[in-house]
């Protein structure tokens, strides 16, 4: 089938995927704005340190030289610089209570060379751990939207009793009270409650020291439960205690549950949010269900009661002792079997007819006219739209998807004269896309200028003026804050611009992959045909009219050796000019219809492409991916359909979107099954 079905996944579907990476993308965004300053600071700091180090270590030979030259005072001063400073450092370290930690905290204020290196090293290890944590959490709980419901990553320094001390990035808990009576018990909760979308949640606690009596409790509690208690003693609090191995289910008296635990043991706590139960593990062995009917929004909690007790938490920072993935696999299989076995109603014919209808409407929506026609014929259905209209839409979509935006806009204006006039935001979006395609070298205007055979690197004349001037001019008229950032960046980094202009030709391997996503339903139904339609359509655009005859493969091969605007200088000029037009259009739009943050961001991102020597490989390079044409294409398609009073989205896409919405709603209302029923799993 056509390889662009991905595009019709509605906004929610897309959102879902991008949101899971949101934390990343926001970081990169910030980077684009600040990177110049930060990089400069970093480089200058590095140079400074090197210089200082050089001076510092050269003081010894210099001092000796001076001594030989009979300059005694300066010589003695120079020679003694190294030993004296070393002595100072050693004394300082001896005074410090726990060396490394303190140093790490005092951080950059220390100007000394080794200390700097220690700090840098510590940060590296830290970020390494952070990376591992993020990676593990993402793979364990892919369904969790961390924007909405963050995962616990450490103990909360705010949500704890005063007898609790935290250290080691708030992962280590130690007791600092007197520990005389049960009244001295103290607990700490994690920073966030366990999101229901985890499906199955797991954390481990390692007993570093059992202290005096080993009265340690590991468990869960709701927000607001008294922290002057061990987990399990109060309502909405659950715990497993080390001294007697009993489980405490919101009660002061425990039930015999498992073995006792003590120094060196690793206790795990697994919350199953599907059936709302909890079990513990000891050194990797499951101890069986401890609690049932758990409420939602529980926090991982530990409680200590006697001096010397120290425990370390593992929220995913390190591999778990217990094989939690295996347990999750079991539940994933269970949930998926449940979905597969879901009864579809008694009258099966009805079910089939509905699916056929959905498929037909989907095909029409995306103007796969030949397939739609054949499908409708074989399933006895009527097509609600004229064939010509479908073909027109197909033509436009094809242009958009092959990156020939200029032609696409033109054709749209011809076929639907009033559409773009009325909908200036849409026009703006199309134009921005056109700009991006120009950078990509795929837009029709640029293509005819640049031709298909890119020039070699050496033959390309670097001319900074040509490129710089329009942008500078634009900058003078810029009023948007974001745009000034962008310009500032160019000012800050003349070296980059230079590099960018002299080395236009980029050596970056890797083809833009054409994504081919299919719905199973579609594939299945299409299989019924044997008249060859489905075969021919499998290549994508062969279906229907072929007047434009765009050869995608050729296009791809052109892209494989990627150069800005296809490598042609004239094309670059045209692109710059187009950018200026776009800028003025944006200003015009703003004046007319007020600020529009979406437009602003779109323009900013598009322009940011020019800031990189290799736009395809830059943080904003994703825009150049042909997959980004799909949302543009579907928006345009929907707009055209709307003018014909046809639904904006096909029912199939609606259903998929609805399923995704249902899942996120399930996550919000606390039913954990949503973790193992991702819509994507069913869209192959």
């Amino acid at each position, binding site marked *: 089938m056509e390889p662009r079905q991905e595009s019709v996944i509605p906004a929610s579907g897309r959102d879902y995927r991008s949101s899971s990476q949101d934390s990343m993308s926001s970081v990169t965004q910030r980077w684009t704005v600040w990177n110049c300053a930060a990089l400069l600071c970093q480089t200058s700091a590095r140079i400074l340190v090197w210089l200082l180090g050089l001076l510092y270590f050269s003081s010894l030979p210099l001092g000796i030289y001076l001594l030989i030259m009979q300059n005694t005072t300066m010589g003695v001063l120079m020679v003694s610089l190294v030993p004296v400073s070393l002595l100072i450092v050693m004394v300082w370290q001896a005074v410090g209570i726990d060396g490394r930690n303190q140093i790490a905290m005092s951080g950059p204020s220390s100007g000394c060379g080794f200390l700097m290196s220690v700090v840098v090293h510590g940060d590296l290890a830290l970020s390494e751990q952070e990376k591992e944590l993020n990676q593990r959490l993402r793979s364990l709980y892919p369904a969790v939207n961390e924007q909405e419901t963050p995962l616990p990553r450490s103990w909360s320094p705010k949500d704890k009793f005063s007898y609790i001390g935290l250290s080691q990035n708030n992962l280590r808990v130690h007791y600092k009270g007197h520990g005389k009576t049960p009244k001295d018990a103290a607990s700490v909760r994690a920073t966030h409650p366990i999101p229901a979308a985890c499906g199955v949640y797991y954390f481990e606690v390692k007993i570093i020291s059992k202290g005096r009596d080993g009265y340690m409790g590991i468990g869960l509690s709701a927000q607001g439960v008294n922290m002057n208690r061990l987990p399990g003693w109060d309502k909405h609090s659950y715990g497993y205690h080390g001294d007697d191995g009993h489980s405490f289910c919101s009660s002061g008296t425990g039930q015999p549950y498992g*073995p006792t635990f003590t120094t060196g043991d690793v206790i795990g706590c697994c919350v199953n949010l599907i059936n709302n139960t909890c079990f513990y593990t000891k050194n*990797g*062995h*499951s*101890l069986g269900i401890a609690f049932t009917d758990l409420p939602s929004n529980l926090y991982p909690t530990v409680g200590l009661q006697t001096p010397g007790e120290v425990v370390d938490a593992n929220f995913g920072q390190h591999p778990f002792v217990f*094989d939690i993935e*295996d347990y999750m696999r*079991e539940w994933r*299989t269970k949930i998926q079997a449940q979905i597969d076995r879901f009864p579809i109603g008694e009258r099966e014919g009805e079910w089939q007819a509905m699916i056929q209808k959905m498929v037909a409407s989907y095909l029409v929506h995306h103007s796969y006219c030949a397939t739609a026609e054949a499908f409708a014929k074989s399933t006895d259905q009527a097509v609600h739209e004229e064939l010509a209209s479908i073909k027109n839409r197909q033509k436009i979509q094809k242009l958009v998807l092959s990156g020939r935006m200029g032609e696409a806009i033109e054709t749209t204006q011809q076929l639907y004269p009033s559409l773009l006039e009325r909908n200036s935001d849409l026009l703006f979006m199309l134009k921005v896309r056109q700009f991006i395609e120009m950078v990509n070298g795929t837009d029709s205007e640029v293509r005819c200028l640049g031709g298909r055979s890119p020039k070699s690197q050496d033959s390309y004349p670097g001319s900074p003026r040509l490129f710089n001037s329009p942008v500078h001019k634009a900058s003078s008229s810029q009023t948007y804050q974001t745009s000034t950032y962008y310009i500032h960046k160019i000012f800050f980094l003349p070296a980059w611009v230079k590099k960018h202009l002299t080395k236009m030709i980029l050596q970056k391997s890797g083809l833009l992959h054409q994504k081919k996503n299919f719905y199973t339903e579609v594939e299945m139904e299409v299989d019924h045909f044997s008249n060859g339609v489905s075969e021919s359509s499998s290549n994508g655009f062969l279906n229907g009219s072929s007047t434009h005859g765009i050869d995608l493969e050729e296009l791809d091969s052109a892209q494989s050796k990627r150069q800005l605007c296809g490598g042609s200088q004239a094309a670059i000029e045209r692109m710059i000019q187009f950018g200026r037009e776009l800028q003025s259009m944006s200003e015009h739009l703003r004046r007319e219809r007020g600020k529009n943050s979406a437009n602003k961001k779109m323009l900013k991102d598009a322009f940011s492409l020019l800031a990189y020597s290799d736009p395809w490989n830059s943080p904003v390079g994703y825009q150049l991916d042909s997959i980004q044409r799909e949302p543009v294409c579907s928006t345009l398609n929907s707009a055209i359909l709307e003018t014909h009073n046809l639904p904006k989205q096909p029912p199939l896409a609606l259903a998929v979107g609805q399923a995704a919405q249902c899942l996120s709603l399930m996550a919000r209302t606390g039913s954990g099954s949503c973790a193992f029923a991702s819509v994507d799993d069913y869209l192959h």
Partner: protein
Amino acid sequence: MKNAVIGNNKQKANLIVLGAVPRLLYLLQQSSSSLELRTECAVVLGSLAMGTENNIKSLVDCHIIPALLQGLLCSDLIFIEACLRCLRTVFISPVTPVQLLYTDPTVIPHLMSLLSRSRHTKEYITQIFAHCCKTPEHQTVLFNHSAIQNIAPLLISPSDKVRMQALKCFSVLAYENTQVSMTLVNVLVDGEQLSQVFVRMMQRDKPIEMQLTAAKCLTYMCRAGAIRTDDNCIILKTLPCLVRMCSKERLLEERVEGAETLAYLMEPDVELQRIASFTDHLVSMLADYFKYPSSVSAITDIKRLDHDLKHAHELRQAAFKLYASLGSNDEDIRKKITETENMMDRIVSGLSESSIKVRLAAVRCLHSLSRSVQQLRTSFHDHAVWKPLMKLLQNAPDEVLVMASSTLCNLLLEFSPSKEPILDSGVIELLCSLTQSDSPALRVNGIWALMNMAFQADQKVKVEIVRALGTEQLFRLLSDPDTNVLMKTLGLLRNLLSTRPHIDQIMSSHGKQIMQAVTLILEGEHSIEVKEQTLCILANIADGNTAKELIMTNDDMLQKIKYYMGHSNVKLQLAATFCISNLIWNEEDGSQERQDKLKDMGFVDILHKLTQASDPNLCDRAKTAMQQYLA
């Protein structure tokens, strides 16, 4: 014919009665008939085999197996597959004698060579092997034809069925077979160790059957010593997997198999027992095994009730086995087991169940628990377990008797409150009859129990034992080829000959024979332990008032004691010295004469030498003896 018989058992029986089988076989073997015809014949035969057990019997009676095996020599793959399918169906039936596969030595190598032909040959041949490997000899035959190397690659076959059958093959091959197990651990499949492949097959999203069989393979490899019990793939994977198999969600068959395999896995290892005892509430989970058929199932549907009834025995015996295994070493686990709801009642009723398997398992469980002093004193007495146990001992097969008598040994220990009632129920006769059994294990248990009984017992009991056993039987036991029996018999004698009045009484009636026996053993070729025990008996005899004379008048015996006092083994020296010390003890009648006599025989010199001995015990003992002379 093919279409007529498919799915119709009646038609199949009809055809067989009408004599279709010989005709089909004739056509099948006729090399002149076309391949299609021969294939169709094999297919029809396969269909017939799919019917009842009677069908299979008549097929086997018509010598279908050699005919089909002959057919495998043909080169046509489709025909071979049809033959194999039929063979498979015949061989997996319990009524087919598996030996038929091994009668012709060329069959196995030929099957091995066919193995890689197609997906179907892989599946059928591995399935045949898995079902026809029942004895160690079969294992060896298959092993020698490099079954492992041939089947190992099938474990990563894309077909689930092939993988499953290959896995089953390995489980039967590795069962109690060190040679196979040792080879298995070193086999690499696609660059990966076999144990890792098995671990992957135990993942929770795999079919239950696959998980269970993979766990079995690893269990057998572990028990054969190929994998250490503290290996992660046992502790963290196999054990939890088997515990999962015991959970309520699994089918009854799976629960039985899971529990039995788990019991087998952890039998020798206390650490595994400890881990299992706290994994997933195993101990209380097993209590559910006794709840079949449940009261609910009886009402709701007959089919379920039937199913439950069929498996109830199996479930119970599996649970007992697992409890026995769990509680065989650790006192805390035993406590946990006896505290499980109605546990003792269940064992008691299990002891008198009709199924031998259940009875045996229940006794095993009881035996395991009887190793606990605390339980013997409390729950065993409260539930009067001795009653059903005694009943069980009256007439039971040997294997049950071994377990039951060995449990009885523990129950007859001196501190057991059950000892008295058991004595009253005429256990002595029973134990004496056990000592006459052909099985050495039963003889040991019988005499062992008597030994325990005689320990610090009343005169009445001792006399009763001697009477019931009879000296003749006692001597027969003393010449028993089994050292264990001999040791326990000596132990019995020693226990009988304790406290002075008892010694004198017994020696006055059986003194002559006992002295004879002692002489015999001391002269014979026996281990140090046996001789030590015998010398201890002598020492006990020497403690008697009148019994002393039996030794004093026997110069030969005194020479022997002298010899052992100078023996290189300290234990024997000690026992012999003890004996002398008893003989020369002051404050007794005639001690002076004895001292003189022994002095004349040169014992004093030896004692003197022994006071210089390096062993402090021996030194002390010799000094005490010397003091008797000085006083």
